[in-house]
Every structure is written in C-alpha cells, then in structure tokens.
C-alpha cells in the first residue's frame, strides 16, 4: 500500500499537496493535502477501519465512493465518518475500530 511513484501515459506524473501530520489512534502519520482519510490510512498500512456491529469482524474500504458505509471511522471525536470521501486536515485525530458509546 504505497503511494504511486511510477508514471506512465495512463497515470501521468503528479505533484502532491503539502505534507501534513495527522494522528491515527494517537500515532502520528504523514499525509498529503488533497488525500482522503482512507488514502492516508492505507498508505500507512492500516486496512481495518472498523469492526462489524454483530460479529466484530474487520472491515475496511470497499466502494471507495461514499455509498457503502463500510469505511466508517471516528474523526475529531465525531463517529461514523466516511474515510473514503473525507479529506485529511492538519492535526486531524482519527480513531479506528471505536465502539459506539450509547
């Protein structure tokens, strides 16, 4: 799960946004402005974003376009945010696999 460095006619060269820092379960990771939370997590090797309600099985990115609601994480304390369509922001606090307190 690495950022693409190879370029070709299908995937031309790109200059990413500014490098920022975000926190995932308290651990600092790097991300580029313009990336989604999902991209930042996957690039850091994190693929389990949440556990399913009933059986507590690992779930991660699936549809990637905001319609399946599988990639839900807690962002800055707000639960059930879609990692796939939420852009990263400097200092963002992300929590994975967080149990909902009811």
């Amino acid at each position, binding site marked *: 799960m690495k950022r693409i460095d190879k370029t070709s006619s299908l995937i031309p060269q*790109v*200059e990413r946004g500014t490098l920022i820092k975000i926190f995932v379960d308290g651990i600092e990771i790097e991300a580029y402005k313009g990336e989604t939370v999902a*991209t930042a997590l996957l690039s850091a090797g994190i693929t389990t974003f949440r556990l399913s309600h009933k059986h507590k099985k690992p779930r991660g990115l*699936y549809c*990637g376009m905001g319609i399946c609601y599988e990639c839900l994480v807690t962002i800055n304390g707000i639960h059930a945010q879609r990692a796939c369509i939420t*852009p990263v922001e400097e200092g963002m606090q992300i929590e994975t696999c967080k149990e909902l307190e009811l």
Partner: protein
Amino acid sequence: MIETYELAVIGAGPAGMEAAISASENGVKTVIVDNYPQVGGQYFMQLPKTFQADKNTQTEFKGKKLESQLNSLPVTKIQNTLTWAVFKEDNDQNWLVGLYGKDTPKYIRAQNLILANGAYDTPIAFPGWTLPGVITCGAALILLKSQRIKPGTRALVTGTGPLILSVNAHLIAAGVEVVSVCESNQILPKGFRYAPTMLKHWPRIKEGANYLRTIFRGKTPYKMGWSIKEAIGQDHVEKAVITKVDKSGKPISGTQKTFEVDLVVTGYSLTPNTGLARMIGCALDYQPQKGGWIPVRDHNMESSLPGVFIVGDGAAIGGAENAQLEGKIAGTAVAVKTGHLNANIAENFIQQVKPNLRSQQQFGILYGDLFTPQSGLISLATDQTILCRCEEVTFGEIKQAVLMGARTIGEVKMITRTGMGNCQGRMCEHSVNNAVVEALSSELVTHQSIGHYSVRPPLHPIPESYLAEAHIEVD
C-alpha cells in the same frame, strides 16, 4: 429563507453537468448539488485540487472543458453535500430537497428535478468478500487515478465488463502485479456478432485496444467464464480462489485455482443509483441488462412523475457519452417546461442528437447482452456468506426467511433486517433478490414478483440533531 429554483440537478457527473448547462443556457434558474468536493463524477474524475499534474489524460481534459462551461453560466453549485431526501410540498408545486453538508443550505426548493445519481459496481457476494483488501472497481480507479496510491501489491481482478480491463491496465501501470483477470461471462464467440456496432464506436475501440494490449503483452491471464469463488484471510485478504462458472454463473466444481494475493478488485457491471427516484415514487421496471431496477422514462427522460427527469447511468447503464446526451435532452425539456424555450426549437435539437443517441443506445444493447452479471453467481455464496454487509445477514438466513413464507424482498427485509443498515440496501439488493429466486427455484417466482427495497428518508445516515434543526427551518 429557502431558495426556490426552476430546476435542481442532483449529481454533477457527465449527465448532471450537461443537464445543468443545457437548462441554464436557455435561461432556467438552476442549482446543481453534488456529494463530492469536485464536479465530474466517477467518469470525469479529477485530481484533488491540491495536486498538480504536468499533463491531463484525455478524459480529464474533456471533464475540465465541461466544468469551465458550467462555471461560465449562472448555475448555483452546491458541492460536498449529500441529498438526504426529496419531498413533494403540500401545494403540489415544488419539490423540497433536503441537503446535508458543511456551510450549505439545509433545504432548497425546485419546480423540476433532474436526477443524475450515477451508478456503482454491482456487488456480488462470495465467501470472504467483506475482508479488508476486497474492493470494487470504482474504489480501485479512484485510488489509482485520483488519489495516486497502489491499493495492493498482488491483485486478482474479477467481474464482468470493460471496467475490469481498465482496472487491470491501471494496476499494471502503477506497478501492481495482477495474477489474473476473471470475466464471468463467456463473451466469445457471441461478441463477434456485434462487430458492426463496435465499428461505429472508434474511441471505445481505441480505449479497449489499449487495455487489451496490456493483456496481450502476456502480463495478465484474461479468463472468460471464470469468477472469484472465495477470498481467504484473517484480518486482510491473503488468498483468492477462482473457479470456472457455467453460462448461468454457477461455479463448476473441480475447476478451482488458488492464488496468493493482498488485493481483490470486483466489478460485476454496474447498478443505477435509484434511491431518490424510489423515495418519491417513480415507477420502476426490472431490466437486468440495463442494471436491474430502473426508472420508467419517456423520450424526454421524464419519469412517471411529471417534472422529475432521470438521466445517465443513474437511470440505465449506457456509458458517459450516452449520459451526456440524456442530460442535454432533459435540460432542454425543462427549458420548454418552464417557458424559456420554444417547443419547436427544442424538437429540432432532439432530432439533431437522435442519431448519436441511437448509436449510443445500440452500444448499450451490446453491453447489456455481453456483460450482465449472471443470476447464478449467487451460488458463489454459501449459507454462511454474508449478503447484507451492514446488518450481517447471511444467505442461510435469507433462505430461512423464505421457508417462513417470505415471497417478496420487502418481507425478507422485515424478517431478517437485510437492507436496513447504513447503505440502505444498495450493497445487498442484487444478491438478496437473486437469493430469493434461487431459494424458490421450484416455484413460479421472478425477479419482478420479488420486487425491490422501498426507500424512505433519510437516504444516507445523518445526525438526528441535524434533522431536528433542519425541521425548524421548514416550519
């Protein structure tokens, strides 16, 4: 104050953008609402605004042109915003559109609606499909083309249709090894009969040839009549088992092969995103070759509800060019309806685009005939396989509901909670519909008689506190 428009376009992909442009050019007061930070939809997918590219791909270039056309017109753009509901207002004049986004109005009013909600990869259930590392073609293309990351290092691509070829080519371009591309349909020799139709679609031939070149270079085996059977792994996919399938999609025993992979990309053609159309009660028809349950429309793309138009892949699978034409037609029709355009001029325009539209429709027929996911693919699932990812309902539990007497998908939903989770049934309807047909193979049931999920607001999960605030605004 809730702003009133003559037209609200929901969705800013190829169809929605063209619809808004056509309407606005003719003087219609138009608003366009989109769920993403940038317009273009999945087809004209853009790089994040903070990314700089030296070169644009041809598709990106076309998308940018369309965007600047849209920007040059007095169209109100509301982006990063979910449309969670559409209500018919008491006076029967307007539609009230419920929005959810940062710094966006909570409601807008519109006299006419154009729904351009696009499509998503038809989800096919197989053991292990909920594991991290199993993603759709849509997800893979966003990660590769827009976000610029490799979703894995060693991949299996499985599904039906040209998208799996596109995904394969992009994966290889990014440096991901692809162990195999499995096309569930046996598209040859049947496909040869469409050679005359294909000859009229040069750009598509060129694009397809590019993708096939990657295959022919010997880098990836392309297997027709094959599908994934199972994804295996603890917390992430580690292995993928593939199987030969018969014409109906049922796996043929004894043909299985296993690969070590850390990525499975699945794309069994596309399903139109019809949630809003269902919510307000547009009549639907079951046409698997056009993507499943699709809205009934007239030649102007108007649904069974007057003033509600549905265009592009969100109405029936036909591709981006078809979507653009449908958007133009609907936008023009709204201009006539709102008194901005003379009906004769509109009719002239319709006659002009007709040949191109017909040619696109012929391609749609080819596509549907060759690449419809077979209903027998439900047999990839075992009794323990989850069909409804949100509520974790298995194939076995669906069969149990049928034994208890359920004969429609609505009854199955009431017994099992399938389709009642966060995704509102988008991820399981196709599987559950086929599961009920399969479970009742001895009875006279059809996909039509089983029906589709009904949809009620909110279409997407939104905070209750937001709903409460929004309600005050309407009062």
